[in-house]
């Protein structure tokens, strides 16, 4: 029964889809696959141990944390907030776009400012609604709801496609160590390089799409004059 070997994949898919404990799913899949695949307990332990040690590179985030927390303590988030607040006279859509540029550049250096809770909610959303007010309009509730979605979307897109540009990011490390047992050796720098055009396109797509969407919504909710000053 060759097909029985696939049960591990089934466990992973169903387990994650049912939101079971991630580590439990992985261990179950590992044990079951090792047993039906004929590795046995010893084979399981040695493959697990060997691959974990080979993949210690993925734990590099631990040493990075040595400064992350202290950077935060010394005002990194405040500095980022002051940097983006230098933007004046932009429409709400443009504020989100500029935040995307800033977030992507810093993501490429593995620097985050606290995500939706830490940055979008306290800094970006007030800037976006402030931009509507500055153009002499009362922010429309539905418009603001859409802006929240757009800001979160920009946050996610730039983080996903920006972090793969960081040499030593966990995504590229996982790709590197997945390819290794299959017989393909790849360098982290090359993995980051192939993502540069994709990252730039992702950023442009995000900026243009949210800018146009905001423009359209501004027209819809406030008439034809637009959200700019």
């Amino acid at each position: 029964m060759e097909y029985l070997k696939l049960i591990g994949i089934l466990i992973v898919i169903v387990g994650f889809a049912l939101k079971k404990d991630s580590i439990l799913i992985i261990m179950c899949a590992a044990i079951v696959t090792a047993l039906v695949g004929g590795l046995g307990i010893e084979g399981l332990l040695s493959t697990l141990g060997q691959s974990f040690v080979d993949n210690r590179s993925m734990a590099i985030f631990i040493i990075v944390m040595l400064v992350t927390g202290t950077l935060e303590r010394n005002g990194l988030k405040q500095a980022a907030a002051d940097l983006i607040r230098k933007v004046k006279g932009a429409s709400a859509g443009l504020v989100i776009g500029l935040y995307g540029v800033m977030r992507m550049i810093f993501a490429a250096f593995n620097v985050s400012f606290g995500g939706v809770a830490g940055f979008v909610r306290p800094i970006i959303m007030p800037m976006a609604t402030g931009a509507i007010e500055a153009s002499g309009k009362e922010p429309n509730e539905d418009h603001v709801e859409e802006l929240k979605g757009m800001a979160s979307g920009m946050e996610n897109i730039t983080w996903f496609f920006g972090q793969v540009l960081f040499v030593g990011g966990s995504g590229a490390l996982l790709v590197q160590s997945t390819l290794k047992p299959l017989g393909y050796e790849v360098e982290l720098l090359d993995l980051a390089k192939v993502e540069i055009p994709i990252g730039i396109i992702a950023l442009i797509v995000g900026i243009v799409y949210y800018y146009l969407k905001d423009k359209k919504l501004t027209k819809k909710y406030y008439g034809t004059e637009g959200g700019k000053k």
Partner: protein
Amino acid sequence: MAFFTDPSITIGTKLLEVIYIFMGLMAIYTGVKNLRDKENKSPVGTCVFWCALGIVIAFGRWIPAVGNGILIVIMVVPAILQKVKVGHVSAPTEKEVDTNYKKIGMKIFLPALMIGICAIVCALIPVIGALTGCGIGVILAAVILMIYSRDNKPVVFLNDSERLLSTVGPLSMLPMLLASLGAIFTAAGVGDVIAGIVGNVIPEGNVNVGIIVFALGMMLFTMIMGNAFAAITVMTVGIGAPFVLAYGADPVVIGMVALTCGYCGTLCTPMAANFNIVPVAMLDMKNRMGVIKNQVIPALILIVVQIVYMIMFK
């Protein structure tokens, strides 16, 4: 010791091993600190998790593979039983952060960007390598922070990193465990079985069809599982390797862009709750799908772009 005196091993690899030892000690510090923390509801489980992890990271090179395997099983037990907890959190107060910011200002970006810069520079020097570069960057960043302010003593760095490690907890081990699962799949021959099945669907030798199936499969699997990291291990072993890479396509382009194809799936699924559902609550949005709705069109554009890119540069 023989490892460090072996002249055939590059200085970068030796330095990296030193960094691993240091990282392992940081994990062990996290474990011991939590064991003695009265506010931690599960001091023993927390300590077992971090110490087992620390031993594998720091000394795994010198421990037999089976021994490391046993340590990892010991490590995951408290994680699965939900016995790895956060103890006392000594987060900086707003006042302290403001005072520090007034003193340092925009100069804070220099140490923040240091790690990435060092990683790139060292990646260009083959004997050192990107990861050792990260480590060097961390040291430089710490030195700069110490110059900026006398309050940044070594113990502050250590306790701040302990706070972050405890907060991310066992889930931070997900990528490493998934990579190990991928290795087990490969060792058990899972890839061959999938290749046999998919081989009936994909015409053999048609790399472009293989790329499209791989890319869309990544997106779809990520949507179902909510995690591109979980999808990439399964999909690379099952589809990427036998149907695309086996025909000579570039593993750098295909292997890496497949992951970001998965990210297009992440943008479209409520399964990725951290990114798509939690923000809805944090921003008091009315529509539960409000974030996803704003991400679907960019995700669809990007999946098409990436498929074209993979086909062009394979």
